[in-house]
């Protein structure tokens, strides 16, 4: 059977499964809609958290980015797992004990202020929309490449599927679909990794194959990769290239950001007991680690395979996948030395890096670009997002594996999108309407509002997907900086300091958010030409600046708090209560 038919069958079957689960687990109360009634088993919640957490960026982009960044790519591996330790030790058990529905709920009650609640809602909506844009774009890429529909149509199909189970099922529907999606995505990630590991190293465990010798030569895979890369002018794969301080700050921003992401935190509101919140964080990280320990192996396999297949190959001899990705504009080849053979070297192949394709074809039938070629010898532009998706084809794996990867990528993108949509809708219907603007609405009206706002959020997310701001992982990285600088410090101080008051928290969140957002927007959107290390504050890139934002948040909060009056007695009682697992919720 051909790849496309197989992909239709596997993706179709997966979608049917998700919808069936959604119909079976419809939400009938706000408690079920927001936190699945608080009755999810810790292992199921761990799986759902893992699927919720591992987005299109983790599944599609991460291994690809690492394969081009080498050791620098470790920032994503450590950054996107280390946050779970913070979450388990500093946040999850206490927030579970607090026992309400949303993150702004905690901030609003703990800081006895609707202004604090509103600031939290604004941070949350800002973070979630930045993040969701990346998911929809991921859905679009998969649809356009594997099902050969237009990217926009792909985004609309994705929206429709999420609409069905998020709007009907709320958190309950999302949780059980995410359990299924975790199984699909981890299977889809592991199968090609195992195949490729066996092909290259003979070791069926990719996490170990990564450190094994090659089958074809008596040399360790990573040593071979370093040699090959040095040969064609790249730095070693196993060395850092960025500055230590930048590596440090990006890792920290991603870790702390993870712990501050509302759609992750809210997952720990769905388990029955404080004890379960702790256990559940452990399960979640274990399920995540299975993919995250495999990703660096996939990265190194893919890079070596890519070089072996592409470099020094005549364009007319390249395999089909090369031309397929070229057709949708994610690979381009410029024959600089007019020999008809592809040279892959370090540096950007084209001026302005991203190719602008013309409708014309060159003498080998390659797509031509408007860009001027750059002065180096590299002839290849490759979008880093495609490495995982192209990997099975590069390694010549059977068609069903390729179809499976498409289904896995969709599961990853859709599960994360659904989780994000839910926190957006609960922030609007619960925090904004019920708790702030219109406390008189009934539960039924609130549930209806929650569904309407979920639907609206889906449409906005779809528009982001059709007009994407930048490529998947980059957009996602910003959400972390913002979460690290605003929400995380407010929650931690709320639990660990009884003295922290509303003024400190509000000014802290605002200063962290404004500082981080300004820094990112300045370097990424207003003056991208200054976005190099010599202009950065202390050599910290926009990706890592969230850490500085967090420190500012803490300092401002502690200073303002020390010159204003302490919180009322009831707040001391709330804090005492959440610190002990026993007693009233």
């Amino acid at each position: 059977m051909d790849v496309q038919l197989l992909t239709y069958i596997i993706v179709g079957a997966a979608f049917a499964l998700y919808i069936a689960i959604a119909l079976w687990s419809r939400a009938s109360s706000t408690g079920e809609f927001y936190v699945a009634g608080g009755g999810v088993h810790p292992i199921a919640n761990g799986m759902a958290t893992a699927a919720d957490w591992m987005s299109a960026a983790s599944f599609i982009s991460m291994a690809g980015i690492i394969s081009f960044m080498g050791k620098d790519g470790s920032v994503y591996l450590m950054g996107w797992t280390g946050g779970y330790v913070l979450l388990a030790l500093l946040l999850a058990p206490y927030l579970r004990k607090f026992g309400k529905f949303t993150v702004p709920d905690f901030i609003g009650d703990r800081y006895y202020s609707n202004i604090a609640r509103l600031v939290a809602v604004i941070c949350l909506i800002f973070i979630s929309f930045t993040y969701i844009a990346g998911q929809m774009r991921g859905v679009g890429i998969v649809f356009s490449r594997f099902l050969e529909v237009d990217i926009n149509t792909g985004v609309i199909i994705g929206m429709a599927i999420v609409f069905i189970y998020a709007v009907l099922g709320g958190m309950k529907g999302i949780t059980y679909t995410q359990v299924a999606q975790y199984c699909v995505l981890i299977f889809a990630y592991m199968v090609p990794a195992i195949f490729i590991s066996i092909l290259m190293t003979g070791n069926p465990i990719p996490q170990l194959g990564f450190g094994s010798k090659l089958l074809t030569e008596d040399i360790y895979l990573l040593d071979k990769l370093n040699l090959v890369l040095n040969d064609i002018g790249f730095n070693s794969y196993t060395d850092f290239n960025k500055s230590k301080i930048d590596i440090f700050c990006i890792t920290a921003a991603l870790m702390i950001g993870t712990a501050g992401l509302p759609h992750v935190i809210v997952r720990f509101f769905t388990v029955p007991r404080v004890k379960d919140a702790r256990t559940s964080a452990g399960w979640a990280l274990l399920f995540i680690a299975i993919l995250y320990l495999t990703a660096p192996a996939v990265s190194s396999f893919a890079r070596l395979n890519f070089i072996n297949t592409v470099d020094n190959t005549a364009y007319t001899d390249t395999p089909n996948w090369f031309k397929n990705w070229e057709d949708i504009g994610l690979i381009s080849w410029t024959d600089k030395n007019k020999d008809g053979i592809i040279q892959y070297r370090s540096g950007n192949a084209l001026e302005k890096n991203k190719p602008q394709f013309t409708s014309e074809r060159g003498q080998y039938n390659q797509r031509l670009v408007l860009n001027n070629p750059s002065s180096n010898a590299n002839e290849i532009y490759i979008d880093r997002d495609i490495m995982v998706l192209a990997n099975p084809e590069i390694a010549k794996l059977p068609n069903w594996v390729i179809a499976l990867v498409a289904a896995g990528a969709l599961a990853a993108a859709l599960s994360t999108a659904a989780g994000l949509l839910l926190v957006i809708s609960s922030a609007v219907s619960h925090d904004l309407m019920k708790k702030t603007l219109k406390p008189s609405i009934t539960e039924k009206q609130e549930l209806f509002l929650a569904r309407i706002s979920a639907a609206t959020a889906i449409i906005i997310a779809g528009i982001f997907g059709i007009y994407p701001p930048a490529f998947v992982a980059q957009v996602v990285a910003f959400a972390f900086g913002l979460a690290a600088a605003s929400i995380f410090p407010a929650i931690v101080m709320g639990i660990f300091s009884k003295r922290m008051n509303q003024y400190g928290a509000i000014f802290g969140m605002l200063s962290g958010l404004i500082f981080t957002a300004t820094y990112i927007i300045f370097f990424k959107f207003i003056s991208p030409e200054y976005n190099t290390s010599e202009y950065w504050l202390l050599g910290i890139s926009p990706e890592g600046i969230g850490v500085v934002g967090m420190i500012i948040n803490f300092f401002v909060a502690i200073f303002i708090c020390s010159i204003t009056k302490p919180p009322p007695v009831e707040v001391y009682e709330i804090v005492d209560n959440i610190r002990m697992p026993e007693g009233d919720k």
Partner: protein
Amino acid sequence: MNNEKINKYSYWKANLKIVSILLSIWFISSFGAGIIFSDFLDKIKIGGFELGFWFAQQGSIIIFVLLIVIYCFLMNRLDKKFEASED
């Protein structure tokens, strides 16, 4: 202070101790071994891995999982000792 208050106070103190020890290990394994001392550790090679590179790409993640497991174990024991468990 009455008994209940003393009890709460010592529970919280014990909790903070567990959290700070585990977070120190968290910091040392990721920021320490994976980043700050990574180049130094790279001189040691285990199989095909340079040790610093391994910590940055796999070792730290394995330690993170273990830390949460240990945390759950210690906290459950603490809950029992202080009769603070929910069941």
